[in-house]
C-alpha cells in the first residue's frame, strides 16, 4: 500500500518544468499584445499540439499522451500563470472535448477524431450552453433526430469556447422530447458538417485571446456513429464531463492566483511610499500572507481532487476544488490590484489583465452557485 505523500512524481515534475519553460519563453512575450488585439494564439496552439498538450489524457492508441488527471492539471496551471486564454483553449480541448469522446465514444468516432485532436493540431469544444439554458442545462432547446444513418441537429449554442477555431464539438441535443434530462444525447459534430455555422466572436471582459462564439445548427448532419454512449444518456455524460473538467478550471484559477501573488510580491518590494518599500508595511504583508495561504489551500484541494479522480467522491471533490480555487483566485487578484494602487488600474500592468481574466473562473463550467448545489447534494442525500 502506498504511503501518503504530497510530492509530485517524476513525470509530473518534468512536465511542469517543460510546460513552464515553454510558457515563459514562447507564450509570455505575446500575452499582453494578444489580449489587446483579441488575437487567437494559433501558432502557439500548433506548437502545443506537437508537445502533446492537447490530448494529454487520450490513450496512446489514439496518439494521445495518456497522462493522468493531476499531470494535466499541472500543465493547465503552468499555462494559466502566463496566459489564462491559452490555458482555457487547451483545457477545453483536453477535458470537455477529448475526454468524453475517449470515455463514451464508439470505436469509429474515436478513430475518426481523437488522433487529430490529440496530435494533429485540431482543437475542440463543448456545446452545452444555450441562450436560455445556462445553469439549468436540462432545459436546452437544441434537438436532434435520427434520419437513416445520420443525426440531424437543429438549434443554437451560446458562449462556446474555441467556437471559431474548433474542428470538433461535443454537442448536447434533445433526442426525445418530453423526457427532460433523460431525453438528451451527446453527439460529436465536426465543424465541416453540412448545416453547421459559427457565429461572431464575443467581446468579452477577459480571456480576450481565447475565442468564444455561438454555434448554429441548421439541419446539421453527422454520422449516427458519432453519438456518445447511448441515446438519452447525454445529460449524464455532460455532468460526468463537467465533474472531470472542473479540475482543469480549478487548476487555471490556481495558476492565475500564483501569478497574482508573484506580481504583488515584486511590486510591493519595489514600490516605495513613506520612505520604505510598501512590503515593509504590515497591511501589505498581511494581504500577501492571506493570498499565499489561500493559494496553498486552493492548490492542495485541486491536486487532491485530481489525484482522486476515480473515487466515488470525485464529483464533490472537483466541485470543492473549483469553487474554492476560483473564488480564492478572484480575491487574490482583487488584493494584488489593490497593492498596485493606481498602477494596477492601468493596462500597462499585468495585474489589470489578470483581474479581468480571473472573473470568469467563478462562472464557467458551472457557477459557484452550481458547485455549491453539487456539493450539498452529496452532503444531504
Amino acid at each position, binding site marked *: 500500500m502506498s504511503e501518503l505523500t504530497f510530492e509530485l512524481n517524476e513525470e509530473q515534475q518534468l512536465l511542469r518544468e517543460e510546460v513552464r519553460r515553454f510558457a515563459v519563453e514562447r507564450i509570455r512575450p505575446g500575452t499582453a499584445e494578444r489580449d489587446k488585439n483579441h488575437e487567437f494564439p494559433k501558432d502557439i496552439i500548433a506548437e502545443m499540439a506537437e508537445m502533446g498538450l492537447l490530448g494529454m489524457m487520450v490513450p496512446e492508441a489514439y496518439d494521445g499522451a495518456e497522462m493522468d488527471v493531476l499531470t494535466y492539471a499541472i500543465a493547465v496551471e503552468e499555462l494559466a500563470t502566463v496566459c489564462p486564454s491559452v490555458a482555457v483553449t487547451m483545457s477545453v480541448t483536453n477535458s470537455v472535448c477529448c475526454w468524453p469522446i475517449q470515455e463514451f465514444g464508439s470505436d469509429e468516432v474515436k478513430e475518426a477524431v481523437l488522433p487529430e485532436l490529440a496530435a494533429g493540431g485540431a482543437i475542440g469544444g463543448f456545446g452545452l450552453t444555450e441562450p436560455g439554458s445556462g445553469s439549468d442545462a436540462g432545459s436546452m432547446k437544441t434537438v436532434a433526430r435520427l434520419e437513416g444513418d445520420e443525426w440531424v441537429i437543429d438549434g443554437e449554442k451560446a458562449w462556446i469556447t474555441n467556437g471559431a477555431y474548433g474542428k470538433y464539438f461535443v454537442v448536447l441535443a434533445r433526442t426525445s422530447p418530453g423526457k427532460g434530462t433523460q431525453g438528451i444525447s451527446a453527439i460529436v459534430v465536426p465543424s465541416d458538417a453540412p448545416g453547421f455555422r459559427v457565429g461572431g466572436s464575443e467581446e468579452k471582459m477577459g480571456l480576450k485571446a481565447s475565442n468564444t462564439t455561438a454555434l448554429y445548427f441548421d439541419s446539421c448532419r453527422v454520422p449516427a456513429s458519432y453519438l456518445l454512449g447511448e441515446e438519452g444518456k447525454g445529460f449524464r455524460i455532460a455532468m460526468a464531463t463537467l465533474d472531470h473538467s472542473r479540475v482543469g478550471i480549478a487548476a487555471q484559477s490556481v495558476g492565475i492566483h500564483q501569478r497574482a501573488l508573484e506580481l504583488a*510580491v515584486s511590486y510591493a518590494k519595489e514600490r516605495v511610499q513613506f520612505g520604505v518599500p510598501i512590503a515593509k508595511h*504590515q497591511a501589505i504583508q498581511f494581504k500577501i*500572507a492571506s493570498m499565499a*495561504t489561500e493559494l496553498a489551500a486552493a492548490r492542495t484541494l485541486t491536486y*487532491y481532487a485530481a489525484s482522486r479522480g476515480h473515487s466515488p467522491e470525485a464529483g*464533490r471533490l472537483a466541485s470543492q476544488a473549483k469553487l474554492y480555487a476560483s473564488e480564492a483566485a478572484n480575491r487574490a487578484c482583487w488584493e494584488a490590484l489593490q497593492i498596485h494602487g493606481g498602477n494596477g488600474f492601468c493596462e500597462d500592468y499585468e495585474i489589470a489583465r489578470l483581474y479581468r481574466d480571473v472573473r470568469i473562473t467563478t462562472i464557467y463550467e458551472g457557477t459557484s452557485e452550481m*458547485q455549491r448545489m453539487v456539493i*450539498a447534494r452529496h*452532503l*444531504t442525500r
Partner: protein
Amino acid sequence: MYIQLNDEQKMLRDEVRRFADEVVKPIAKETDEKGIFPTDVIRQAGEMGLTGVAVPEEWGGAGMDVISYCIVVEEISRVCGSTGVILSVNNSLVCDPIMKFGNDEQKELFLKPLAAGEKLGCFALTEPGAGSDAAALRTTARRDGDDYVLNGNKVFITNGTHADVAIVFASVDLALGHKGITAFLVPAEIDGYSHGIHEYKLGVNGSGTTELAFEDMRIPAAFRLGEEGEGFKVAMSTLDGGRIGIASQAVGIAQGAFEEAVQYAKEREQFGKPISSFQAIQHYLADMSTELDAARLLTWKAAWTKMNRKRFTLEAAQAKLYSSEMAQRVTNLAVQIHGGYGYIREYNVERYFRDARITEIYEGTSEIQKMVIANWVLNQG
C-alpha cells in the same frame, strides 16, 4: 501525490473516534460548563498512547507518525475541544521539545512518563507583558553553583492546574534579549513553584488554564533543556510543531460542528420541509465542507513536511492560520443553521463556536502567523 491514510492510520482513527464518542463526548458538556479538568479521560488516553503519539516507543510513546498525531487531536477535538488541546500541548509543546533538545537522562526522567501518560506537562512561555512578543519575557534564571534560581510569572498556561512538569522559559540575562532566553524542565513539586486557580474562559474551559509563579525556585542545571541562550530557538521550533496540533484541533472542532449542522438541517422542518432542502442552507453546508477539506489537507501537508524532516515553518503557519479561521466561520454557520437552538447550551454547537475562538489566538495569533508567512513569501520564497 497520494493522499489517503494507510491501514494503521485508519485503524487509529477508528479507535480514537470510538474512544471519543464513548468516553469523551458524554462528559464534554460538563467539562466545559464546570471547568473540570478531565483527569480520568487523560489517564485513559495515556493508556491508549495518545499522550505521546509521535514519541518513539523506547521513550514511552506510541511510535507513530505526525499524521497519526493530527488524527488523534482531530478526533478528540471533534467531541471536546478542551481535551483536544490538553493532548495537543502534552504531545507537541512538551514531549516534542524534550525529544528534540533533551539528553538521554532528561528523556529518561521526563519524557518517558510524559509520553506514557503517567505525568502531564505544560509549556510556560507567555507572561503578562510578553504574549506575541515572547522575547520580552521577564522571568529570570540566575546561575548559582550547580543550580539555576528562577523568579517570575507566567499566564494562560494550558494544563497549568494539573501539570506535573512544566517547560519554563526564563532569561539568564535580560540585557541579552532573546539571546538570553533559556528553557528548563521543571517538576511541579519543586519548592518555589506554584500555580493559580483555574481561569474561567470563553471556551476550552476544561483545559486547566492558569498562572504559574516561580519564587526563588531552584532548578538543577541538569534540568536545563538545551544550551543557555538557546531557549528562544527551542520555543519557536516547538511552536512550529504545536501549530500543527492546533490546526488539527480547529479541524476537529469544525468537523464536530459540521456534522451536527448536517444532522440538524436534515431533521429540522420549516415551511413544511427539512431546512436542508433550502438553497441557503445547502450553500452554507457546501462552503463548510469545502473549507474543512482545505484545512485538513493543509494540516496534513504541514505534518507530512515535518515527517520528512523538511523545514515546515511556512506550512505549519498556513495550516494554523487557515484552519483556525475556517473553524471560526464553520462553527458560526453551524450555530446559524441551528437558529435559536444553536444559541442554547443544550445543543453542542454553541460550545463548538466558543471553543473555536481560541484557535485564532493561542500558539501564535493569526496576526503572528501572517507575519511568519509574509516574511517567508517576501524574503525567503
